[in-house]
């Protein structure tokens, strides 16, 4: 056992004496926390963590020369495990999943371990944990400014390294404050003198100061309705009723718009548009029905028997968004913490007011069975459609001013296919394979129909052009179709187990009416599956692999520990780990020895020696020999014990039990009085 514990022990690390080095460790943590606050929008715990870490740094610097107290170590270990339990509980039991649980855990870990920063190795581990926090923040950061934080962090690391080593070499770390101050003041004086000495032209007004800074706005996405960038012209302050104008295109940035924790990937569908005129889509039906914030399944069309299952999505809004519930369709039930909900004629739900950052809502959707075989088996279109939407049938088959040559192309491409599905797929495939996708498009010339311009002139476009072209061409073949907007699934973040939806994920696609299945989403944009609702994008599948790793799925949605499934091993593993740590600490405390090698009297004498040191109020420092220690401590008993210890440790003659007992009797009980 002794050999094992000795082997497990790490080589010792020097005590970190440098205040500057410790300040750098703390600054690195502060930078990491700043990154989390700025990019993760997580406020409460990071601030608490900073306060705790500051206190911990002060305490651990003051007590760096003292031996670690056993019970304090145990207390810190318990706190660490408590933080771990908090992480699990926060991510699995919270209604909408925790806010950045991993980052919070790391922050807590740094704050707790700050109370035990004794050696240089301790400081380094604190630094590495703060690097992990920076990494977690990097998941959300897509701008150049994040590089500044990274550089700051690296500066702190370098500063720590330098000051720690300088201190070890007994050199002073000095900030060239004087030189910088002199240079600054000199420059100021020189500038003022130059200004005063230079003759100023009279009569010319002083122009405002011009500062030339690089301007990155063109990359940032500066759009009227930030969260629904495709809908440019909003008449309603809530942004809900709009139109999609093909003449304009918002610039889409990388800013996250919302997080979605979802059981399956899907398109987050927002508004639908049915009327196309003059290059713009608008919604023509304004009817709606009012609902409670919780919409139970009985208020919504029942899911067909052959559906592929239901899944929950939880949305967390990050930026102000129009009052539209973006969600996977068809919806089975939904809950949004607002006063009321409205369902419009297109099945989209609206909230009374704008969605604000931090607002969440959750939706249960089912995955309809829309495979090729099922759709091909659909009966041909018949006027049954008219029954469903009386008065609107003409609208859904109105191709507007689609040019004759476009109609010819549609007829030609659809060919002799008999089933509706084949004709839809033929047109979709035609668009996907013969046109190029680009976001870098010149403005549509005035007086030109954007669809005709897209199909015959530029032959490149983005989702709206593709979707519009498909919808209109389908309509020209008397197949009902409409345009819908929303967001693509977003990037799956395996660490957080949720999709990060950004501005650039804004998307538009087509819904086609099939008599038995209603509106079926079809995506004509190149590079994606035409029937998006039923296929899994590859990156999501890759993300699914990451779920096999327990630490990555700690934030998995779960109603409670019972539904954790394979994750249920995590609490058990944590408990076992806690038991192992406590047992190890106990072993080290008790110094269990098999007795095979230890000399009789050795353990007893050394324990007595330790106890005596504690009673004396100052323990022997590692470089101190027993004799040197004894000389600084006036105690007759210590003199005798030191002699015995020296004889034992350096001559192998340990005292007999009788003498030990006599010595032990003289060690006073717990009091700090001088011996």
């Amino acid at each position, binding site marked *: 056992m002794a050999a094992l514990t000795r082997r497990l022990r790490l080589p010792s690390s020097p005590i970190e004496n440098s205040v500057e080095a410790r300040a750098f460790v703390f600054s690195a943590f502060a930078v990491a926390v700043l990154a989390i606050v700025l990019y993760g929008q997580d406020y409460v715990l990071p601030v608490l963590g900073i306060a705790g870490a500051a206190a911990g740094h002060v305490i651990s610097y003051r007590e760096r020369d003292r031996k670690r107290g056993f019970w304090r170590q145990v207390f810190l270990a318990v706190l660490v495990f408590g933080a771990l339990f908090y992480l699990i509980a926060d991510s699995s039991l919270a209604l909408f999943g925790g806010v950045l649980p991993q980052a919070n855990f790391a922050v807590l870990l740094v704050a707790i371990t700050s109370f035990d920063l004794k050696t240089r190795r301790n400081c380094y581990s604190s630094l590495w944990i703060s690097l992990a926090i920076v990494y977690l923040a990097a998941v959300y950061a897509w701008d150049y400014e994040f590089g500044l934080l990274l550089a700051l962090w690296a500066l702190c690391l370098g500063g720590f390294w330098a000051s720690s080593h300088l201190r070890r070499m007994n050199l002073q770390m000095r900030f060239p404050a004087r030189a910088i101050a002199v240079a600054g003041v000199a420059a100021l004086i020189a500038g003022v003198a130059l200004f005063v000495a230079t003759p100023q032209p009279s009569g010319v007004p002083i122009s405002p100061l011009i500062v030339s800074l690089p301007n990155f706005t063109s990359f940032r996405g500066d759009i009227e309705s930030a969260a629904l960038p495709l809908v440019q012209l909003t008449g309603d302050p809530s942004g809900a009723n709009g139109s999609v104008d093909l003449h304009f295109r918002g610039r889409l940035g990388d800013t996250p718009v919302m997080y979605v924790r979802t059981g399956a990937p899907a398109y987050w569908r927002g508004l639908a548009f049915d009327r196309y005129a003059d290059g713009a889509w608008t919604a023509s039906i304004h009817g709606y029905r009012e609902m409670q914030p919780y919409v139970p399944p009985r208020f919504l069309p029942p899911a067909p028997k052959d559906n592929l299952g239901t899944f929950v999505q939880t949305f967390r809004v990050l930026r102000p968004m129009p009052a539209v519930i973006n969600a996977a369709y068809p919806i089975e039930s939904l809950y949004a913490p607002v006063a009321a909900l409205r369902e419009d004629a297109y099945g989209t739900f609206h909230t009374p007011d704008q969605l604000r950052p931090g607002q969440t809502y959750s939706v249960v959707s089912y995955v309809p069975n829309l495979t090729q075989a099922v759709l091909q088996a659909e009966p041909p279109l018949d006027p049954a459609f008219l029954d469903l939407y009386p008065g609107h049938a003409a609208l859904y088959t109105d191709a507007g001013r689609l040019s004759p040559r476009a109609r010819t192309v549609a007829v030609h491409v659809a060919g002799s296919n008999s089933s509706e599905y084949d004709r839809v797929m033929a047109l979709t495939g035609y668009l996907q394979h013969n046109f190029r996708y680009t976001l870098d498009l010149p403005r549509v010339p005035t007086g030109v129909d954007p669809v005709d311009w897209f199909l015959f002139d530029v032959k490149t476009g983005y989702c709206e052009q593709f979707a519009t072209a498909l919808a209109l061409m389908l309509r020209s073949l008397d197949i009902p179709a409409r345009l819908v907007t929303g967001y693509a699934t977003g990037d799956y973040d395996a660490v957080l187990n949720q999709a990060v939806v950004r501005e650039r994920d804004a998307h538009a696609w087509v819904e086609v009416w099939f008599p038995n299945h209603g509106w079926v989403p079809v995506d004509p944009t190149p590079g994606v599956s035409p029937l998006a609702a039923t296929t899994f994008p590859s990156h999501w599948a890759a993300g699914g692999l990451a779920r096999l790793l327990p630490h990555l799925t700690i934030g998995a949605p779960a109603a409670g520990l019972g539904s954790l499934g394979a994750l249920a091993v995590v609490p058990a593993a944590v408990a076992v780990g806690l038991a192992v740590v406590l047992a190890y600490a106990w072993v080290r405390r008790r110094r269990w020895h098999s007795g095979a090698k*230890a000399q009789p009297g*050795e353990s007893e004498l050394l324990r007595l*020696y330790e106890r005596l040191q504690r009673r004396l109020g100052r323990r022997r420092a*590692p*470089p101190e020999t027993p*004799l040197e220690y004894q000389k600084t401590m006036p105690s007759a008993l210590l003199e005798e014990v030191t002699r015995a210890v020296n004889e034992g440790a*350096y*001559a192998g003659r340990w005292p007999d039990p009788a003498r030990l007992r006599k010595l032990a009797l003289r060690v006073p009980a717990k009091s700090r009085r001088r011996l």
Partner: protein
Amino acid sequence: MAATQEPSLQPRRAAELLDRVEKNIHLVIVGKDRVVRLALAGLVAGGHILLQDLPGTGKTMLARALATSVGGIFRRIQCTPDLLPSDITGSSVFNQKDLTFEFIPGPIFAHIVLADEVNRTTPRTQSALLEAMGEGQVTVEGTTRVLERPFFVVATQNPAEFHGTYPLPESQLDRFVLAEEMGPPTDSEALEVLARREHGDPIAELSAVIDIREVIELQEACLRVVVAPAIRSYIVALLRAIRARPDVLLPASMRSGVYLQRAAQAWALFEGRDFVLPDDIKLLSGPVLAHRLGMKGRGRAADMLSEVVSTLPIPPLRQH
């Protein structure tokens, strides 16, 4: 502690003998307890010592007093640039009477040899002396002659003068177990020196307090002093710590570790101990190691060493 039947010298008895010698030396040398004890420890450890200081600080007096106290043969070699190796080892002289070559032994054939101002002589002569120190024998004209036992060289060196000197290279310095400076006397010591010299030279009245056989017994007792594994690992850790220092150019050799152990064993005898304490290692690290370390820059090796021993943790008391 139970007495054993062994006739060999017990630590307590060794301490008595050493104390007697020390007291005897102090009849002549005022103060300088540490240097006296170090010199004696060098003798007991079976090595040679190097005294470095200005002329007139008592180096020669110390060596002479030491030699007289232990009752051995004492010779002095005043090193000069024209000193030849044969002046040290001796040479054969043609005897006119019986027409044979007769070997006249040089000053090296003595128990205690004082090599004064060893850095004044040529490297050739230095190496002859140092070879004798290392091997305990000299070879003259093809015949190998064994030196006296014990054989103890006290070399002195004046560190302040550089003109016309041949400083000992590090490899030669490495052969001395200990090197120490005499240091200036305090005022009271100086007064005492003057008072003692008022009516003559006290060294003339000095007599032997132990004999050379007892010196050999002391040397044997020194070899029996226990060095615990913890002490050995402390020495190894010390050497490693010195090697890790950025300001050390030439680190301590393995030989220096061996000498440190031996010197600590001798030091333990002074206190009547039969085991070495880490305190002995700490105390002796300066005299044993400082003179063989090459330092970068102007830092003093002794300062660096005292810093190392004051920060290096001693090995754990618990071995099991």
